[in-house]
């Protein structure tokens, strides 16, 4: 995947409505009308989002002239996810080591003693 393509994938995914559209399409292809229904949005508004997704190569439209069903194209999504996910995994591994270090530091060097309980204990 080239940088421009990846860029358009990230831009397309930046919008919550478009992510919701993709999540819906993961269940199967559908028409624009059916797609618009749960979103409380006009068909033109949904069509606009679909154009962004289509340009990013994340969805495609069927040939059927009347229905033009919308279909998820998972491949660019997999690549974009791989790139950012790898970066995240690199830092997560680093931060896991930092976690372990912080735990060690706190057990080596106990902080202030815990505050004394406010209520005095019952005298026996």
């Amino acid at each position, binding site marked *: 995947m080239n940088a421009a393509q990846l860029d358009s994938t990230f831009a397309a995914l930046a919008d919550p409505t478009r992510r919701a559209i993709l999540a819906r399409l993961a269940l199967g292809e559908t028409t624009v009308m059916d797609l618009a229904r749960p979103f409380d949005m006009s068909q033109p508004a949904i069509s606009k989002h679909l154009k962004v997704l289509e340009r990013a190569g994340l969805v495609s439209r069927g040939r059927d002239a009347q229905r033009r069903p919308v279909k998820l194209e998972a491949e660019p999504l997999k690549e974009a996810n791989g790139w950012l996910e790898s970066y*995240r995994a690199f830092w*997560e591994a680093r931060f896991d080591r930092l976690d372990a*270090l912080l735990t060690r530091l706190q057990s080596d060097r106990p902080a202030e003693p815990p505050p004394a309980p406010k209520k005095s204990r019952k005298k026996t």
Partner: protein
Amino acid sequence: MPKTTDLNVTLPSDTEIRMTRSFNAPRRLVWDAYTKPELMQQWMTGPSGWVLKVIGGDVRVGARYRLEWSRPGDGAVMGAGGVYLEVREPERLSCTERFDDPWYPGEAINSYDLVEAAGRTTLHQHFRYESKAARDMALSSHMDEGMAESYRRLDGILASILAADAARPSA
């Protein structure tokens, strides 16, 4: 001890990377882990087989720091370093970063904000590059190292979209 919150990575603009992560520790300790060479060496390590040496410890505006990852045996060395731009112990640190053998063009500006609440610290880590190309190179540079890990860690909306798509019988 409860698991700390997951790392959140976002791309707020074409030239930035932002990360947020919480730790079960007061921020003074997180600050130390980011600024004391003997502590930095323990977690900013590179790929396995590489050893990290940190030169620094003088944490004030204008002072330099340097990190050197080397591979004993073949003498391979990768170095990076920079200058501290802002030092407000223990809440904000900002520095430049440049690699000797640059895998991204130019210099990055890294800043770290530490917010403490109830003995926990939330770290906001922010990297700004000179260009979008540099940012993208930095992002893709950990592809290999991160890959093995990443398969175990797929989560969030993208993963669920992909899972649902995979489970669906193809038309």
